[in-house]
């Protein structure tokens, strides 16, 4: 998918450059882009190193576990079909806590662990259960308190108030998360009986066998300031 997007950018640029007679600018722009890539990354280093160091202290001090306890009632509401005391719930709480703190490198393994536990409860091993869809909905719209990466980029380009977008981001992400939970609920209720009672109801959302991209099992580089190591 990303391959095609990348190729599209380059091919479309080439065609547009011919149309607009900007061939020379094209080559220059390519090298300029490469230079910017490195500049941005270097701007990220200081913030990432400091912030993730700080967050690791918090993690070791058990702040993640504390947050997980706070989230317990919410998790019970969101995952009614997971039996009480099932290990999946613990991983889900850790995953959500790590997402909130912007610890992507902790969130992804926890999320995968939660998925594996949910898979044990899932009667149809090839079709996502309702609980799995809910967990995914939470992760695709994850609430982050501090978008570290963005603050770093804004600092790099000399923003007067690099952190002024924290508030707007928080509001927008809360709305997106609410929408995700609402949509997930709606589909969950609409799909009525679980998928395994009506064979082959993969639905329009069915996808081909998934192959994780190289270097996965980690968070998405450039996601939300999470770590990829």
């Amino acid at each position: 998918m990303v391959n095609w997007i990348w190729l599209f950018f380059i091919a479309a640029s080439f065609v547009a450059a011919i149309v607009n007679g900007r061939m020379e600018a094209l080559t220059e722009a390519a090298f300029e882009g490469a230079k910017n890539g490195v500049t941005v990354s270097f701007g990220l280093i200081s913030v990432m190193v400091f912030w993730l160091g700080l967050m690791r202290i918090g993690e070791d001090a058990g702040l993640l576990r504390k947050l997980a306890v706070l989230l317990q009632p919410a998790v019970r509401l969101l995952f009614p079909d997971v039996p009480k005391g099932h290990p999946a719930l613990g991983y889900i709480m850790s995953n959500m806590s790590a997402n909130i703190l912007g610890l992507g490198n902790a969130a992804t393994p926890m999320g995968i662990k939660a998925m594996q536990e949910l898979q044990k409860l899932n009667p149809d091993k090839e079709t996502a259960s309702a609980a799995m869809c809910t967990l995914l909905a939470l992760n695709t719209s994850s609430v982050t308190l501090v978008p570290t990466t963005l603050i770093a980029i804004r600092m790099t380009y000399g923003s007067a108030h690099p952190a002024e977008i924290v508030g707007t981001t928080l509001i927008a992400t809360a709305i997106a998360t609410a929408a995700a939970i609402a949509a997930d609920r709606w589909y969950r209720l609409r799909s009525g009986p679980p998928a395994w009672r009506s064979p082959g109801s993969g639905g329009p959302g069915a996808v081909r066998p998934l192959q994780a991209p190289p270097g996965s099992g980690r968070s998405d580089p450039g996601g939300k300031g999470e770590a990829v190591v």
Partner: protein
Amino acid sequence: MIVFIPLYAAFRKVPVYESFLEGAKDGFGTAINIIPHLVGMLVAISMFRASGAMDMIVSLIEPLMHRLGVPGEVLPLGLLRPLTGAGSLAFTAELIKTYGPDSMIGRIASTIQGSTDTTLYVLTVYFGAVGIRKSRYALKVGLFSDLVGFIAAIIVCLFVFGS
């Protein structure tokens, strides 16, 4: 925050400096790992801009967006965001560089980038890890929440930073 966390951790008998170094190493690795992604994407986006292709696309949707008082430049970001984290981050960086971090476009781009996630990537990693092949409605829900986040980011920014 910067003072509270280490103090609390020290109270809980955590070797604070060692913990900090552990996390900091991770952070460094992350930033270094992002470089190839960012370079690759920024080269493509930079070419896309210089060739005039971006202007062509933006000028197509500009009138519509303009009527709503939304800068059309952020629209491609909305399309990129669910597909590629590094690509959209690169695009955001490019917008911030071009228009300035404290411009309306810069603020909106930052907010969009921070309030949505790379749905396709998350789905691939999570479901791929346990061998789920039929994702049912998960993709629809994820994309829907991205769309809501995108619109919410624009509205919230115009409301908060608008004059």
